[in-house]
Structures are given as C-alpha cells and as structure tokens.
C-alpha cells in the first residue's frame, strides 16, 4: 500500500465518522437536553432505553442495517448499500444514543440552583434548552468526542454495510482487519499509527477547547 492510499483511507475515515457524528450531535444534543429538562411519564424508561442503546454491538447494528438497506429490504430503493453513505448512516445510528445519553447526564449534572434559576425565567422551552446546552457545554463536548472515538474505531458495522471496497469504502479500521487477514502486519502498524494520530489530534483540540471554555465559565 502506498502513501496516497493511506491518505485516502484516513480521509475517508474522518469524512465518514465526522459527518455521522456532526449529524448525530445536531439531533442528539438537542434531544438529550430536551429530555433532561422536560417531565413526562416514561422519562425513566426512555433514559434507560437510551443507555441500553449506547452499548449496541456494532455488528448487530450493521447486520440489521444491511437487511434494511439491501435491495430486497424495505429501504432497498435508496441503493446506498456498499457506499460511504451506508457507513455514515450506520455510524449516525451508532453514535446518536451516545450523544443523547451523555447530553442528558451533562445537563442533569448541572447545579440544581442553576437549573431552577433558568426555569424560573419562564422562557420559551427552546430558549431554556439552549441556555442549558450552553451551560453544560463541557460535558456535551466530551460526549461528542466519545461518540467520535466510538465511530472512528468501530469496525463491525462499517465492514458489513460498507463492504470494505478498496478506494471506496475501505476505512482505517476495515483496512486494519483486511491487512491483518492478509498477513501484511507492517501495513497494519502504519494504519494503527495513523489511527492513533487522528485520535491524538482530536483529543488535543478538544482539550484546548475545554481549557479555554473552562477559563471563561468559572
């Protein structure tokens, strides 16, 4: 494998996981904060359900999604199986409960007085949620980061719905599986190094963000 292919694989990995996590964050953060602030009958059950879904085995999700996206399945007309779009859908579904769940706990762990104060302002519901998201941003960013880590390191779902097609749906993790199977261990070590670097880069930037934000909010 040459450098160009390594770069292409890395970029695809980040592209797929990045898009998936951006989408799941947009929905998940909002949903999580909303669930945390509102009171409804099945709230405990909903939270338990989300917590359970956080641990969905990627292979199981991959298989279900394969059956759904297959030409013979209910969403077959979309024709997205074995394309990067299918991998994005898989990782979106995989990270959505993580972002939602961590957003719920981030908002709920805010000081009681703060939450009561915001409530007492009697703002429209979505303003209230926005304020809470702003207050809980450190925890929420950690949640998004955790979701991204999970997405970029996940292999079970993307290998099933993406098919590990060279130059097309082969990402870092599926490439590691592939080259391990082919016995090209030196390539695998390079891929592993790149995956670690990507992790490191994202962690470092998030650390920077939290550090800056922490300074301001204190």
């Amino acid at each position, binding site marked *: 494998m040459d450098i160009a292919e390594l770069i292409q694989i890395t970029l695809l990995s*980040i592209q797929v996981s990045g898009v998936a996590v951006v989408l799941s964050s947009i929905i998940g953060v909002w949903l999580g904060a909303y669930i945390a602030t509102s009171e409804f009958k099945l709230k405990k059950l909903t939270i338990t359900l989300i917590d359970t879904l956080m641990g969905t085995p990627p292979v199981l999700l991959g298989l279900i999604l394969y059956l759904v996206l297959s*030409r013979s*399945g209910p969403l077959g007309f979309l024709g997205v199986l074995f394309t990067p779009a299918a991998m994005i859908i898989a990782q979106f579904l995989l990270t959505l409960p993580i972002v939602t769940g961590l957003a719920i706990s981030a908002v709920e762990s805010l000081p009681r007085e703060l939450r009561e104060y915001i409530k007492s302002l009697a703002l429209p519901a979505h303003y209230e949620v926005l304020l809470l998201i702003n207050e809980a941003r450190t925890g929420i960013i950690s949640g998004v980061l955790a979701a991204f880590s999970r997405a970029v390191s996940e292999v079970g779902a993307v290998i099933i719905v993406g098919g*590990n097609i060279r130059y097309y*749906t082969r990402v870092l993790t599926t490439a590691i599986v592939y080259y391990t199977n082919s016995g090209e261990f030196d390539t695998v070590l390079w891929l592993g190094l790149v995956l670690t670097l990507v992790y490191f880069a994202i962690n470092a930037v998030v650390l920077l963000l939290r550090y800056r934000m922490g300074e301001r909010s204190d």
Partner: protein
Amino acid sequence: MEGYRLMLWLGSFILGLIVGSLISQFFILKIHETSLAPSFQANGQNTTWTLTSRKHVVLRIATTTSLDATGLLDVFKKSFEDKYPWIKVTWVAVGSGQAVELGKRGDVDLIIVHDRDLEDRFISEGYGVHGVTFAYNDFVLVGPPEDPAGVKGSKGVVEAFKRIFQAGEQGWAIFVSRGDKSGTNLRELSLWAMAGVDPSGKTWYKEAGQGMSQTLMIADQLRAYTLCDRSTFLVFKDKVNLVILSEGDPLYLNLYRAIPVNPKKFPNVHYNESLLFVSFLVSPEGQKIIGTYTKEGAKLFNVCFGNLTSLGIYDPYEYDEESGQVRFYRELLSRS
C-alpha cells in the same frame, strides 16, 4: 506547562492538515461527474452500440476471496477502467456462499464464484444470466512439512483425506476448515464425503469461519492441514511454514465463473456494465491479463474461455453450439 502547550499546537497542526486535505478532496470529487462514452445495449437479440452521454456507474461485484487476495482484480480493474472510463469497478471479497446470497438479494451486479452446484442453482432459479467460466486453477492440500498423517505418499485426494481422518482420530493431525460455505469449504466437504468419512464435530477438525488467508495462518499456527486454492497459497507460501502435500488429482480442479445478476429480477442492477465486464474478462485481451498474471514469479491462473471441454468438462449451458454462453459472448465480442 510548556509540554502541554506544545502538544496542543502539534494536535491542532495535524487536525488542520486533515481538515485542509478534506476540503481539497471534496473539490476534487466534484469534477468528473459525467462523460461521453460508448455503451452497448444488450437487450436479448438486439445488441447495438450507441454513443450516449451517461453518468458514472459504480459496478459492484461480489467476488470469491482468491481473486482479491492474489491482486488479480486490482490489475484487471485498471485495464478495464482505462478502456471504459465511466465505469468504476468495486468489489466485496467474500466466500462463494455469501457472494451468491448477495446476488440473490440484488445487492451486487455481478458475482464471481467457484462452486458449480451453487452456480447452477443460482442460474436455474433465475437470479443469474449469461454465466461463463473464464479461468481455472486447482486446489492443493497443504500441511506442515513433517506431515504427521503421511499424506505425501497417498495416491490421490480421496486417500489423502482418509489418512488425515485416521491420523486425526488418533490425535496426530489437525485439519483447519474454512467453515464459511465458501467454494473452497464446499469442495472440502464434498472431498470428505467422497472419502466416506465425516469429520464434523471432531476435536481435531477446526472450523475457522474466515477467509482463505486467515485459515492458512491458523493452519500454520496449529501445524495443521488445510485445503487451499493454489493461487492464494502461492501468494502466502513465504508467510507460512506449510508445504503442498497432495496435488494434481482431477478432483482438485477449481473453475471460476462470472455470472451477471438477472436484470429481470432486479431492474436496478447495472446489467450492461456487468456484461461489458464479463466480455472483457473473456476477450483475448482480458484472457491475456489473467493468463500472464504472476505474483512473486508464480503464474496463478490459467484461462479456459472456450476450451473447457479440453479439461474434461462439458457443460451444455455454456458449450451448446446453438444457445451456449460461450457463443453468446463470442457474438458480443465480434460486434465490438
């Protein structure tokens, strides 16, 4: 504190690089949306060439692992895409059993497999059309050089498998099976059946449930026997300490067939592009690529389009004078 700052800057730098290249890649992807390209419409009798403006087509193939692991498909993809620049060839490398399943669900446009029974069923059930055998090689029985079961002296594959069974029962030998319903796995099972023994469930019979290359590595680690196609073994022989112990029996013959998925069952498959790909496989140019493909000095595949009968196999579906697939592809090629 200084180290901490440095780490942050380094991280930001790497992330910046990544984001920058992402953006540039996005712009590159936007070019080449459509191109003017010749295509032929093969609707039953009327095969005509037309010049049409068309979008890029992604041809999806489900292939047996050996064509991928040997690198043949990579070479083939390059020549094919040079000739038909509007077609992007992609494939998933799976066992023959799974490849057939993917074809039956309409998830791929073309399957390339190597198990005659599976293929015949795939075609007779109406999932595949215009299947044609384009290459062959053979299976080999590989094992540790010390050969605890004494396979080396056996006459033919049936006796070799009997010896492994006996040695296994006495605890001297281990056999690693693919165990994944691939063409190799199905062949191995039928060879056990021919030897009149049933190894399933025995402690010395390990089902790997993985591809050929992983199975070879497992066999290498367990000092075990396994059945392998010659091409994959030649590619891997330097990475494992296993040797060929039994070969050359006619029962080891391994035929590769390409079968486009029937567009009448799945209207959205890229049928024309599949036919183009298969006709390129069997064209003199394609057969030359396959026949001369070598890896680390070893020739991996032999071509057999149009002369399968010389291998002692007569398949009326392919070789009938009037309606055989060989004739179909010859006519297609003569028109181009």
